[in-house]
């Protein structure tokens, strides 16, 4: 019988009411009296030298308040990068300046050149047409290998070349890995592309800057996953506003998926301009602008080699990746292909030797940064594709090959610097195979064949590092921030609680799930607990929501703060009942003295804290409010086994998903309904990457996929039918190092599903006699059909 409250229950989400009735408050719903509107004039060239920007005619247009260009930002800071990578020669990465508005050059289509602030958006747009630009077009570098070639055009003239860094990991293993591969019984090699993706949360980005001159205070309302991070980056590094004079509010946010982590130029602009003109300044991105200004994701070109001994044991993995940074370094961009990618290259396997080389490259494209999964999908995709290819070359069952090499003992220290605390990879594989009815596959394949379709079965295993992250570790790895999380628990006099969290909910359901944890700890109803998030003015400094960290890190902070509350209430209860504190028990919202029938209710104790007439004032302070900061001691390691069956139409190359099963191990689960929703959403994005989505530039750096007409978003009829789709999380090996035993579930679906789908397509083709080694994503009808003609 499922629980009806507390940890493990699935109460309906309380935030749904406002979203279902159109009464949510997203940033674009905020309008401030006397507000102005800004339109950004963006570069339509990928690379150019700015000779002159003549705004005189535009400035005289109706409704124009002021026009800003890069010249207005001389002496102002530039958009900072939050992570510094040290390369394999001990040198720090190249870190070009990223001005708020372009200075000297434009470096990608969409680079903002001028900002027109006007009384209305229409007037701002009209005035933009009157700005006269004198820009000399320069050759653009788009392809990463071209960008690194001798004599290539430089994206940044002040840097020696377009190489941001050349990172090796673990550098000490380099020669041993080379040697192992040279001497191996079998080596499988695969070259592949993990294509550029656009995160596309359905709410485009919005920023509203406001300034109170009398108090010298700035406020920024913004679509962010982490308002405190924005306040710190923008205040300290761009605009020079101390935290106590700067408030950042991220109200209801319509999805993030990584791309709303980063600090963007438009946020700094609106905050800056509001101070300059002493009026609120609002910017609302159009979807077309989003495609050319939101940080993109993925964009890796990789060669991977898997070496096996004569018994098919993995002996070494070597990978060589070019990772696109785009024209500037976005907030966490350097960390994605390195620490979030290289450290996962052991996967679920006991490969003793791993070496990862990553060259990060500047190009004349939109900056690339974390997108759901961030580095871990890229690691999983190459590893799980090369394993499937090896199985085919060796003529062995891909499931058996994986099982033979699974890590089975925990904790397990990988050769790439991380220690998996718990896991059971055979259990998730067993669960997945039983839910897939693998034994029935042959009959289903025959049925497909009778319809003229080719059916394939694809499997994939993955591991991810979540619950980001131990501050001292990431500090050593180049992070310029701590990655703890915070919570303040305020208990009111009549017993209700308000929890102020540094994490942020933009679809994850914190307002429902977080109270389940506290309700369980105290034994009270969830309705007595309210969650506050998203405003730096009333939440403790926290690092926000990404990397599947909210419950594992933010939830742990909340547990620690609640423990402090419980400890204090026990002291008060002991005083009220004239008993020893050690004998006080808290159960179902009642404090009792062990071995007696004495008890006081939760509400009696909280009231005493605020009406301390009969109270141990000499020992403890009145009031009931505690804060905790939680810094994890390790990452968490969710893992899973996924499978799907596809049908390929040999006449058209079209692929349909006929059956899909995910078997995940997230450790303990607080709200199964929300967890399943997270996985389903992640899988949809993974299926989107596998079959549909592709961000495409032409050789001149023109962005060809800049709208939903050209960028194929997954829609309802691209997903597997209900009857043939199961997301399972019943295999649970709790995390050993956080108080809830949770691992995080937000990214798993997006990490686990792309190789699953591609492996299934390859199985369909290979089993039908087509000699096709690999098809790059998206596995579009054209690519499949072409591969069949060649194979």
């Amino acid at each position, binding site marked *: 019988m499922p629980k009806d409250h507390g940890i493990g229950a699935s109460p309906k989400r309380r935030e749904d009411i406002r979203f279902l009735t159109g009464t949510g408050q997203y940033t674009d719903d905020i309008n401030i009296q006397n507000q102005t509107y800004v339109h950004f004039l963006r570069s339509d060239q990928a690379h150019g030298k700015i000779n002159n920007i003549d705004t005189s005619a535009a400035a005289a247009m109706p409704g124009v308040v002021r026009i800003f260009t890069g010249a207005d930002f001389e002496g102002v800071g530039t958009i900072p990068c939050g992570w510094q990578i040290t390369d394999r020669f001990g040198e720090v990465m190249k870190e070009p300046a990223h001005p708020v508005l372009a200075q000297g050059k434009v470096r990608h289509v969409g680079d903002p050149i001028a900002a027109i602030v006007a009384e209305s958006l229409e007037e701002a747009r009209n005035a933009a047409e009157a700005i006269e630009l004198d820009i000399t077009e320069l050759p653009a570098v788009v392809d990463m290998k071209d960008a690194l070639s001798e004599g290539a055009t430089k994206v940044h003239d002040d840097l020696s070349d377009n190489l941001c860094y050349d990172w090796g990991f673990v550098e000490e293993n380099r020669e041993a890995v080379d040697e192992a591969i040279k001497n191996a019984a079998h080596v499988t090699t695969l070259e592949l592309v993990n294509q550029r993706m656009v995160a596309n949360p359905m709410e485009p980005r919005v920023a509203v800057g406001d300034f109170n001159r009398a108090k010298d205070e700035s406020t920024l309302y913004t679509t962010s996953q982490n308002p405190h991070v924005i306040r710190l980056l923008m205040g300290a590094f761009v605009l020079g506003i101390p935290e106590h004079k700067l408030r950042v509010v991220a109200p209801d946010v319509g999805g993030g998926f990584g791309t709303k982590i980063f600090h963007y130029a438009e946020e700094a602009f609106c905050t800056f301009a509001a101070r300059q003109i002493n009026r609120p300044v609002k910017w609302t991105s159009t*979807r077309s602008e989003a495609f050319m200004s939101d940080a993109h994701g993925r964009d890796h070109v990789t060669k991977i080699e898997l070496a096996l001994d004569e018994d098919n044991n993995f002996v070494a993995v070597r990978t060589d990746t070019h990772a696109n940074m785009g024209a500037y370094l976005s907030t966490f961009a350097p960390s994605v292909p390195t620490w979030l990618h290289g450290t996962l290259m052991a996967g679920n396997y006991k490969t003793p030797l791993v070496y990862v080389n990553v060259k990060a490259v500047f190009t004349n494209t939109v900056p690339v940064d974390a997108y759901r999964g961030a580095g871990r999908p890229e690691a999983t995709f190459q590893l799980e594709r090369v394993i499937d290819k090896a199985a085919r070359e060796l003529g062995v069952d891909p499931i058996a090959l994986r099982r033979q090499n699974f890590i089975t003992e925990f904790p397990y220290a990988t050769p790439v610097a991380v220690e998996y605390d718990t896991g059971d990879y055979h259990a998730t594989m067993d669960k997945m195979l039983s839910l897939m009815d693998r034994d029935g596959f042959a009959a289903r394949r025959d049925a497909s064949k009778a319809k003229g379709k080719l059916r394939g079965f694809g499997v994939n295993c993955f591991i991810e590092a979540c619950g980001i992250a131990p501050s001292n570790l990431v500090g050593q790895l180049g992070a310029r921030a701590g990655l703890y999380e915070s919570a303040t628990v305020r208990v009111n006099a009549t017993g209700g609680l308000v929890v102020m969290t540094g994490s942020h909910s933009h679809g994850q359901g914190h307002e429902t799930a977080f109270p389940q944890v506290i309700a369980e700890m105290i034994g009270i109803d969830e309705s007595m607990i309210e969650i506050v998030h998203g405003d730096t003015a009333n939440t403790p400094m926290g690092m926000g929501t990404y990397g599947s960290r909210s419950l594992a890190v933010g939830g742990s902070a909340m547990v620690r703060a609640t423990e402090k509350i419980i400890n204090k209430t026990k002291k008060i209860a002991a005083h009220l009942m004239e008993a020893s504190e050690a004998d006080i028990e808290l159960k179902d919202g009642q404090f009792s003295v062990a071995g007696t029938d004495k008890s006081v209710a939760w509400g009696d104790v909280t009231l005493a804290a605020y009406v301390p007439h009969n109270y141990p004032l000499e020992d403890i302070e009145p009031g009931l409010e505690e804060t905790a900061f939680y810094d994890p001691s390790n990452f968490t390691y969710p893992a899973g086994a996924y499978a799907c069956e596809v049908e390929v139409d040999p006449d058209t190359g079209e692929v349909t998903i006929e059956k899909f099963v995910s078997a995940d191990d997230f450790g303990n689960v607080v709200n199964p309904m929300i967890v399943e929703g997270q996985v*389903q959403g992640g899988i949809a994005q993974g299926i989107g990457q596998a079959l549909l989505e592709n961000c495409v530039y032409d050789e001149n750096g023109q962005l060809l996929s800049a709208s*939903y007409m050209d960028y194929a978003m997954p829609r309802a009829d691209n*997903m597997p*039918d209900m009857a043939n789709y199961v997301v399972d999380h019943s295999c649970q090996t709790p995390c050993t190092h956080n108080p809830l035993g949770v691992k995080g579930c937000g990214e798993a679906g997006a990490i686990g599903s792309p190789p699953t789908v591609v492996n299934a397509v390859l199985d369909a083709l290979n089993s039908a006699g087509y000699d096709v080694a690999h098809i790059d994503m998206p596995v579009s009808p054209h690519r499949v059909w072409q591969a069949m003609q060649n194979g």
Partner: protein
Amino acid sequence: MVEVTMTVNGKSVTKSVKGNTLMTDFLREDLNLTGTHVGCDTSQCGACTIHVNGAQVKACTMFAAEANGAEVATIESQAAEDGTLNTVQQAFQDYHGLQCGFCTPGMVMAATALLAINSKPSEAEIRKHLEGNICRCTGYHNIVKAIMVASGQDVPSIAAE
């Protein structure tokens, strides 16, 4: 400027608008009905779906002036006055058919329009009907389920584990 009069969520409104004012801007800016969302600029995402004379319309595809004399319904009209959710809204909550909530108003309006013309749609018909509404969070699974439930059809329970 042209004067338009229409019934929005049961109330008659008369406003002076520019000829090129989009229905989305009219609802959001002039009437402060911010439940109708704008998620794209190519009429692809469906976040702005409303009902005009009972038919499902993407509000970004029409001018406010074109709605002169029309009966318009937005997401704000879907729950009862006392706050009770309608059948579709309630099913979305019961079956976790929303996460960030941004596409939700459009999804609910599209779903109620479907059920008005097809009271027991099949799963395939629901998926086909939603092809003009993009959701990035849910993967559609629970949205389809919610619409099946709202039309009185059996579906697998959620959170079975």
